[in-house]
């Protein structure tokens, strides 16, 4: 029974493209895309409390890989290549920074997207001599929707499995107290590195899958720092330590941002920033945790009465 509900929900969501028009389908793709990113972000950053600001670096790497390789090899192979490249970059970044205090990791990831953008731009300008690429793949929006839905399901399943498995427990111990963790014999760096890489691969795939939607790809489009920002704010709103928290944050915020960018394009980032600060202040552990606290208090009152 407990496994039937998610499967039914998945089937219902998979049927959506047959019933809606192009605009709602586009919204659906956006929600799924950010749902995947936020869930993947929370996979690593939730339990360890290491704030990664590099989401868009991996997302952009995925999108760019598709743009470069789409004409050279079949699509599934392209996705595999993208995942591998994302994995290698994540391992490099993780090996350099995850042994150290969390602050170094944050700082490094903070500039990583800018670095990736400048390196890709440099390469395109000096080696290929064309800035910007076209992606012509016979992949319609409904296929992108299905692929993202599949990726989301896999990510959620992974997150569920990790929360039950030994590695999830290890991660929570590391997040609570690294000293205790090392005394328990947990390989701290290894555990963090594994989770960070996994989360980065999912983000890379999310970028790769959405690449055919843009048709035209340029470093400043796919390495846009706002994506990292939105991912963090969504995961925080929903609650990064809950399975469905990040997804729950992604749905309303994506719709809000769509509406804001359509109606207040000039004041978009000011409103975003203020909203972000408000969430950090008011909901430090996310909506779900706040809700649990509220209901717990209510129950306590009832019990006393």
């Amino acid at each position: 029974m407990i496994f039937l509900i998610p499967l039914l929900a998945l089937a219902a969501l998979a049927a959506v493209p047959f019933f809606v028009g192009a605009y709602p389908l586009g919204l659906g793709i956006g929600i799924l895309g950010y749902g995947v990113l936020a869930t993947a972000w929370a996979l690593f950053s939730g339990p360890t409390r290491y704030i990664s600001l590099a989401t868009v670096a991996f997302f952009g790497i995925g999108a760019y890989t598709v743009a470069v390789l789409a004409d050279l090899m079949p699509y599934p192979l392209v996705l595999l290549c993208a995942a591998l490249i994302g994995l290698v970059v994540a391992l490099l970044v993780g090996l350099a920074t995850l042994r150290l205090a969390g602050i170094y990791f944050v700082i490094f990831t903070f500039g990583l997207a800018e670095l990736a953008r400048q390196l890709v731009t440099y390469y395109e300008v000096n080696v290929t001599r064309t800035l910007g690429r076209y992606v012509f793949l016979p992949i319609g929006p409904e296929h992108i929707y299905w692929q993202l839905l599949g990726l989301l399901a896999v990510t959620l399943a992974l997150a569920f499995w990790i929360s039950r498995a030994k590695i999830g427990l290890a991660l929570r111990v590391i997040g609570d107290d690294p000293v205790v963790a090392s005394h328990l014999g947990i390989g701290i760096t290894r555990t963090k590195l594994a989770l960070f890489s996994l989360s980065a691969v999912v983000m890379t795939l999310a970028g790769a899958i959405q690449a055919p939607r843009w048709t035209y790809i340029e470093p400043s489009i796919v390495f846009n720092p706002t994506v990292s920002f939105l991912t963090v704010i969504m995961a925080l709103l929903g609650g990064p330590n809950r399975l469905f928290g990040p997804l729950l944050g992604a749905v309303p915020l994506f719709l809000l941002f769509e509406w804001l960018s359509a109606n207040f394009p000039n004041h978009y980032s000011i409103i975003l920033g203020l909203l972000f600060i408000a969430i950090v202040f008011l909901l430090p552990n996310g909506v779900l945790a706040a809700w649990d606290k509220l209901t717990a208090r209510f129950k306590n009152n009832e019990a006393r009465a």
Partner: protein
Amino acid sequence: MLFSAILTGLVLGGTYALIAMGLTLQYGVARIMNLAYGDLIIAGSFGAMLLFTAAGLNPLIALFIIVPLGFALSWLVYALMLQPLARRSPNRDRLEGDSILATFGLLFVIQGVALVLFGANYQSYSFLAVPIDVLGTTIAANRLLAFALAVLFGVGLWLLLTRTRFGTVIRAVAANPGSAPLVGINVDHVARLAFALGGGLAAAGGVVVSMYLTFSATMGVIFTMKALIVVIMGGVGNLLGALAAGLILGVVETLVSSFIDPGLTLAATYLIFLAVLVVRPQGLFGKAAR
């Protein structure tokens, strides 16, 4: 050619050292990792440009308006936004995480305001753009002035920290915030002042930057990044370390951009950062210094 590149690099490095000093005050004393730091620098640059183009005010005089403004703004940001977070946090890790997130939000607010007011284009103004002969190579007067200002602020700050009572108090809080109250230091108060002082230095850095570089509303991230790298290279809270690291970074960047490719300067910066992290995460000059 090499000498001229090194000279330009030292001048650039002086600016990096100046902005890194402000950040090292904010992080070393107030324990706030301020991701909006670079955007305050850019705000200072826009302020100087506005005063120069609209009111014809010399940037040197503008410093006397913009630096106090940067100080006041940072004071307010700390009092309204960061102090409540500091009071709420059970430990330093939690405060670090929360302040990173809150200042990340602040980054987008400041950047958004700059975008609304000035647009996304690169800006600059021409101030003292006359060539001066230095030991056989020419360099623009505004760059030399920028370097002189960086030295002036650096020495001033160093004297403030080492020769005055207030400076000693600041260093005490940086060294051990837990014990500072035992000798009658109000840590909250000192942290707020140090944060504001860092903000004033950021604004000063912004004015200096605007004298000889082009800047845009979205460039703050890059300045934050470079200031952070200099702070970590020099060792957190170490002023002289920041000075040396800033000069090194400036020289390396200029060498890379003049002999390899201007598009690779950030990559070079990152490479240095990576090397420091792998080899000496406590900074080039160790932890022992102030």
